[in-house]
């Protein structure tokens, strides 16, 4: 029930933000639409930790800035690789072991890997992540271990 209420609040906030109309008629439409959407999600049985991961919200505040900084760093690295006349690349498929316990955690980790340029997650079997790297230096393990550790911390104790 808390999750349904949380989802409703988020949806309505998004609706208010994007609509920009605050007359009673439009607000009524917004309330009705959000209620309908939450009702449908409830009936479909998709109101779980995966669709409404509010338990991650406050820990994500710490993770997102680190991820943005990492994306920035990797972008500069890949840009330098592309601009260098010799184009020194060393593409490889590497394997990482993920320590996340939940599917949601693995999803966040896999997307974080893909979001940082130079590495793309191409497959996940259980704990084993198959990653394509532009050069082995971009995926030497130390970097990914750090990200793995942080995503596992993001998962937290609960769930």
């Amino acid at each position: 029930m808390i999750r349904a209420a949380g989802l409703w609040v988020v949806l309505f906030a998004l609706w208010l933000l994007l609509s920009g109309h605050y007359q009673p008629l439009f607000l009524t439409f917004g309330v009705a639409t959000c209620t309908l959407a939450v009702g449908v999600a409830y009936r479909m049985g998709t109101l779980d930790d995966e669709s409404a991961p509010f338990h991650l919200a406050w820990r994500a505040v710490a993770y997102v800035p680190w991820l943005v900084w990492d994306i920035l760093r990797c972008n500069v690295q890949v840009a330098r690789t592309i601009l260098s006349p010799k184009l020194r690349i060393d593409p490889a498929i590497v394997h990482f072991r993920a320590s996340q316990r939940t599917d949601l955690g693995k999803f966040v980790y896999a997307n974080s890997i893909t979001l940082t340029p130079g590495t793309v997650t191409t497959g996940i079997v259980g704990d084993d992540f198959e990653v394509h790297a532009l050069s082995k230096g971009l995926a030497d393990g130390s970097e990914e271990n750090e990200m793995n550790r942080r995503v596992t911390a993001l998962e937290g104790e609960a769930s």
Partner: protein
Amino acid sequence: MGTALQLLSWALILAGAFFTLVGALGILRLPDVFTRMHAAGMTDTMGAGLILGGLCFQGDGITAVRLLLILVFLWFTCPVSTHALARAALQGGLRPLTGTAAQRDVAAQTPASRQDP
């Protein structure tokens, strides 16, 4: 709006344009679909991120929040589409060039080595 903010805004937009350009250059220079995905990823993350970040200073507060929302949705969907592309390529039987093979492929495209017998 202050001149300093205007300058910051333009610096961010130009930096974003630069990264988008480098991403495009990477798509041309890199040898196969898997390495090119990394270059395309640059335009998604840094290119779009810096340009949207710069545009945030050009409107009022609510416009800035909406632009940041675009960025959030973009950063959620881009990895998914990139992953789907990689899966499709692997499924279709494409194998990524690795290590020295990729280097040789790049070398074959440079004019200097083309004159070699």
